[in-house]
Structure formats: C-alpha cells, structure tokens
C-alpha cells in the first residue's frame, strides 16, 4: 500500500483586515470610528477656539462662516466644544466597556470552567443584577459615589457587567464542551493554562464584537447620566451634558441640541457598524 500523503495545505484564506475592509458595514464603521479618534487626538489643533472661553462670539449665533456650528448661550464655539467632547466620549466608552468586559469575562469564564457551586453563585448573582435595568444600577452607584464624570463612567461600567458575564459564559460553555478542550485536559493542562491559553483566545473574538457594540450603549448611558446632571459637570464639553444644558433653548437655538445629538448618533452608528463588520470578519474560518 503506497503511503503517499497529501502534504498540500489549503490556500490561506483572506486575512482579518482584508475581510473587514471587504464588508461594507465594517469599512463605514471603521472610517467613522477612526475619524472620531483622529478628532479626539488632534482636538487642540482642529478646534478653532477655546471650548471653555465664554464670549468668543455673540450668544446664540446660528452656524455661520466664523462659527461653523454656531455658538451657545455663553457665546462658546460649538464646533470646538464638539471636538473636545469627542475625547471624553471616547474615553467614557473605552473605560466603561473596559470595566464591564474585564470583570464580566472573568466571571463568565470562571463560571463555565469551574461549574458546580462557583458557577451557581456567580451566575445567580449575575441574574439578580440583570433584573435591574442598567440605568437604575448606574443611578444608584452615582448616588452613593456622588456625581462626577469619573463616577458616571464607573457606574456605567459596573452596570454593564451582567451582560458581558452572561454572553461570555454562554460562549465559554460552548468552547469547554468541545473536544479540543477535553483534549487539552487529557494532556494534563493546568487550570490556568486551560483558562488563558485555550478558553480566552476562543471566546475573545465573540467578546470583541460584543464590546464594540457595547461601546455605543455605554456612550449613550453616560450621556444619559450627564443629561440628568449626574455625570460631566460644567464647564466640561461632554455631548450628553451639552444636550442637557441646551434643552431650555430648543425653540430659540435648535442647533444647540441637534448638533450634540447628531454627534452621539453618528458615534453610536459608527461603533455598531464596526461591530457588525468585526462579527463577519472574526468568524473563525472553520470548514469552509
């Protein structure tokens, strides 16, 4: 019997970036998000005026050639405020999601890996947290810690934990029941190795997608807290706060509310599209 073995390998499938750039959602999302990051980094150079300086122009100037997006009730330049606001908005999204993601993934992975009473305690506590709306958790957190942007971010991050824990738990359950995981147990892998060498890399793609989509939720939640006066304090340029501060002038100067609202909407859209694109491009290329 000839033992000629096929030693060819499949042509390497498209790389991750190529697939992301080929999906229309992904590329639009990527452009929006990259644009935001660009604005945040170079806000100082892009902003035509000091965002906190009052009386840069007249009060309630509608958009014109000097002030592209008009001015607010103190005569501050709206364009500069929006540009500087993108910094805070992105920071809020990243930090809040970072908190929920890290703690949520630890809980989820541990519960799926350990099973038994650890699983019961972790997942039932998650269920209890889940039964409160995120806003309520965030509100009570701010009530305890006091209103400030930093506390609002922590509150939004904590409120998101149950969702990430649950998602990670179900993803991890699927992975731990696969033969490769058992194969690794049967060669004598330590729990740490199983958790961080096998489980983590395999649930991470799912969680990256969830987290990207979650950034938009976190930005909205933080904007909501700021809108209620529990987040960013004056004179910080934060979009949610700007939205809240201008609601008295909605008839007189509608652009004051429209512009930050639009900025939030575009950001959320950008992250959602990017998350969607990531989902298709991170899908493991198992059996074609």
């Amino acid at each position: 019997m000839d033992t000629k073995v096929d030693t060819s390998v499949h042509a390497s499938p498209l790389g991750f970036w190529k697939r992301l750039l080929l999906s229309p959602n992904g590329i639009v999302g990527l452009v929006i998000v990259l644009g935001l990051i660009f604005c945040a980094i170079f806000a100082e150079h892009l902003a035509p005026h000091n965002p906190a300086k009052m009386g840069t122009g007249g009060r309630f100037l509608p958009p014109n050639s000097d002030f592209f997006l008009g001015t607010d009730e103190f005569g501050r330049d709206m364009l500069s405020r929006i540009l500087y606001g993108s910094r805070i908005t992105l920071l809020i999204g990243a930090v809040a999601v970072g908190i929920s993601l890290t703690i949520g993934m630890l809980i989820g992975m541990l519960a799926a890996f350990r099973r038994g009473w650890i699983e019961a305690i972790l997942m039932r506590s998650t269920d209890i947290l889940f039964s409160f709306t995120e806003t309520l958790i965030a509100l009570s957190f701010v009530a305890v810690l006091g209103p400030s942007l930093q506390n609002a971010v922590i509150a939004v991050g904590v409120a998101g934990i149950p969702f990430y824990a649950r998602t990670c738990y179900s993803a991890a359950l699927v992975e731990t029941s696969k033969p490769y995981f058992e194969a690794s147990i049967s060669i004598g892998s330590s729990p740490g190795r199983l958790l961080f060498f096998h489980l983590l890399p395999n649930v991470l793609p799912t969680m990256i997608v969830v987290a990207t989509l979650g950034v938009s939720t976190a930005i909205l939640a933080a904007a909501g807290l700021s809108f209620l006066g529990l987040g960013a304090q004056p004179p910080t340029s934060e979009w949610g706060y700007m939205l809240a501060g201008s609601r008295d002038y909605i008839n007189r100067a509608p652009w004051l509310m429209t512009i930050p609202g639009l900025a939030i909407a575009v950001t959320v859209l950008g992250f959602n599209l990017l998350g969607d694109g990531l989902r298709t491009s991170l899908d493991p290329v198992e059996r074609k």
Partner: protein
Amino acid sequence: MSTTLLSVRGLSITLGSDARATSLLQDVSFDVSTGQILSIVGESGSGKSMTAKAIMGLLPPKANSSGIAMFRGQNLLAKNTTPPRGTGIGLIFQEPMTALTPVLTIGSQLTEAIVVHGLADINAAHRRAIEMLDRVGIPNPVQRMRQYPHELSGGMRQRVMIAMMMLLEPDILIADEPTTALDVTVQAQILDLLRDIVFDTQIGLILITHDMGVVAEMASDVIVLKAGQVVEAGSVQQIFDAPNAEYTRALLDAVPSIEAAHLQPLSTKGTVILSARNLHKTFRGQRGVGPAGPKTKALDDVSLDIWHGETLALVGESGSGKSTLGRVLLRLTEADQGTVELGNMDLLALTGAQLRLTRRKIQMIFQDPYASLDPRQSVGAAILEPIIIQGSATKSDRHEVVSELLTRVGLTPEMANRFPHEFSGGQRQRIAIARAIASGPELIIADEPTSALDVSIQAQILDLLADLKQEKKLTMLFISHDLAVVRQVADRVAVMRQGRIIELGPVDAVWSAPRHPYTKALIDAAPVPDPHRKRGLRTPLTGSFSTGKLTEVAPGHWVAS
C-alpha cells in the same frame, strides 16, 4: 420487462459566474429503470449529492446545471421546470432526525403530503398512512401516528421517512446516505426494507453512498465518481471483480473487510498495564432541582484488563457505553463506582497535580479531527503543548521534537506554523496523532479515529497507527462501531451492549466463531464488499440476551452467561 424511468445525459454543474466558475460535476450520464438499484459512490466532495440535488431541482442559487434529465417526458434540468418532487421522485435524507418536523405528529406529517398532492381525502390518507407504516415494519402503527419524531429511534424515523416517500407513489426514490447515521444492525434492516420495496413496487432506486459494503449488498449498477467526474460505470459485478480504473481499484483496496485475515501477529498475553474493575456509571436525564429524569446505565459492572503492547477494540452500537468507558479511563467522565489500576496507582483516586502528571500516560485520539484541535493554536504549539506541560524537553530541543513528530506522521516540519483550518481532515487526524504520541504515553485511547474520514484516508491513518504501534510499542484501546476496521487493527475485542461487556476474546476467535447471539447479529449485519455474497434474510434481533457474568468458553474467550 424493465422500462427506463429516468435518463440523464451530460449532466454538468458549475458554481459561480461564467468567468471564474468552478466545476462541481462534469458530463454525468446514467439511466434508471424499473426495479433497478443504481448506486452512486464516491468520497466526500465527489459530487454524488450534487447529482441528486440537480435532479430534484434543489441546487443552491449560485450553481448552474446543464444537460438533460428526461423523466416522464419532461426535461427536469430545463429552465422553469419544477421536478415532480414527492409524487415523481422521492428523496430520503441521511439524517432522519432533522428531516422530520419535530413539532408535528408522525401522522400529520404522513397525511399532509398525500392531502396536499390531492391523492386522497383526509380519512383515506389516514388509513393509507397506517397501512404504509405497517408495510415499512413499524409496530403498532395506529399508536405511532400520534407520536412525535423524538419519541422514535433513529431507525424508526428512517422507516417513517421511507413510508412518507412511498405514500406518494413515486417512480424513483433517491436515498442520500440513508443509513450512514444508523447503527449497523439497524442499517441492515433499513437496507433490507429498501430492497424489498424496490422488488415489490418496481420503482427505481438511486442509492448515494460512500460505503462499498452497502453498494455490494444493494446495487445492480454502480457509478464511481471522483472530483465531479465519472471514473467508472458498470454492473456491480464488473466494478468489484474487474475494475478498470485505477481509482476504483484503490478505493476497493482501501475498504477494510470483516472477512479479511488479521494482518498483525497476535501478541502473546503480556503484562497487564491497565486493569479496570467493576466500573459503574449512570447518567440521569436531568440535573439540578426537580424530579430526576430517566436513568441510563452507561457502564454496568464493567471489568477489563489491557495487556501491554496489544490493541484492544471496544465494539458496540450507539448507547452501548463504549465511549463512556474510554472517557472514564481518561478521567474526562467520573465513574460512580469502581477502580482503575494503572501501574500500581488507582487512577480514579488521583486528584490535582498528581492527576495532571499521570494524564501523560494515557492519551486520546478523538473522532472529529475538525473539533479536537484548538482553532486558535498553531499546529506546532498544539504538538508542543503536552511536552511543555510535562517538561520533558529543553527549550532548544523543542523545535526539533516538533519537526520530528510531524515528519513521523507524514507531514512536513514547515507545517508547524500553520493553523488547523488550513488542513484537510486526514491531515488534522495526523496532527492529533502526533500530539497524542508526543508525551510518550503508555496507552492510547482512539475513539472512532477514522469514522469521520473517507475510506482511502482511513486506510492511511490505520496504517500509520499500526506502524507507530509497532515502532513505539504502544498499547491501544480502539473504540469503534466498524467491525471491519476492528478486524483489521485489533488483537482482542470486547463487544459491549447497554453498558455491559457481553463477549471478549481474540479478534479472530470472536469473529469466526461468535458465541453470543448479539455478537452474531452484529457480524451478520455488517455489509460485506463482495457482490457475490447476497445473503438471505437475517436473523432478526430479538428482545433480551444473557448479560450475566463472563465465563471462559475457550482460552481467553469470554462470553456473558
């Protein structure tokens, strides 16, 4: 007098647009006439299922077909033609579980088709459905009509599928791997039933399969497909006795036969390396609070010795507990009761770091090569992992060890940096084998290592395992449902049924003179790739067997009494 029912000429299928189209099937022609069983054989990717789909008009939207398929004076491949599905040509799928709607009763699914096609009113349809269930050998058809698919076994479901198709009185039945998902004794019954139906009603049957044994038992004519092309076509005798094409010969050579003589010399009784005593394992249907679900005894007082240097095969049908036994020995499933001695340790009593270190001595090769490698770990890292964990090679040696192992299993060292999805099923199984032998185990448990592979690949993997066993003096526990494979690789065999070992002995003794009625039925049911051995009716499996203590009937040959 047979008449031609379906005549296919020059059937070709391409996928994609004209510029960059890939060809799935090229110029396939055949006829099916009354009372004929035509078998389309091929390995995965040969286009055998595509042929059936093209005839049924079920090709995916991106696929284009050309050619002619004349049926009842109509070209089924012409544009805007809907083939007479059901009433003209019936299709039976591989997976009877998914082919039936789980939320409707058997009765309503059976009668629905008749009523929809206007063949009878609801009462007549009901009557005919019951008659047909009786015809396909389902006991208590009146009660079955009210049951749901999940209440029936796999074999029963496949009978229901056949009944459903036959109710519409088609001229042709296409069966796409109809018995691949079934146990061998059930497979034999379903094949008998299909043959009966073809003989009685004189319909034409197109049987799509990868199993040369099934072909030999069933078909009168055969088409061998490879990569979308007809390699050879002819009568079953001609294909088996005097195959013209190289590929057909290779395919037939690769098929293990239950009758083939044992290739390796029997190893004499050596020292016992693993000794399992009185293992029990019961699975409960439900966990957590609430009433406990039904109990399943997966292992019921199983005792077994594995000798150094032998291959011991565990044979049984699904639910026999053979996989559970393997998993208990690996400590992937905890036994309820019993001991397993490895060397002079009780394997089941080990915990923590001690258990992790001992795991090196028993390694597993899994059934599904696609799922048993971590998709995010490079092949080199996967092979290296057991070595790193056991600390059995220095950092500088590692690269060499991996290269050596990859070369040993027939791959190349450069493949170490690639990821599992870049490999084919057979190559992945080689990687899994390299990983299993990396830590220098004393015992390898192979759980259906070749059943997900094509037959030519299976032959290569079995050869590789045999070579490695010889070379490294390995001991192997080989879990399989395929009696022919077992005959080829094993020294001793243990037959399991419902959690108990009912026969145990040297493979040649057990196969040539089985003592237990269940072993007899099992061997009798296995299809033999020899068309001259059409067998008469098989002895039907009846209710209960002796499952008592094993008694020695010949030296080393034990049977449940």
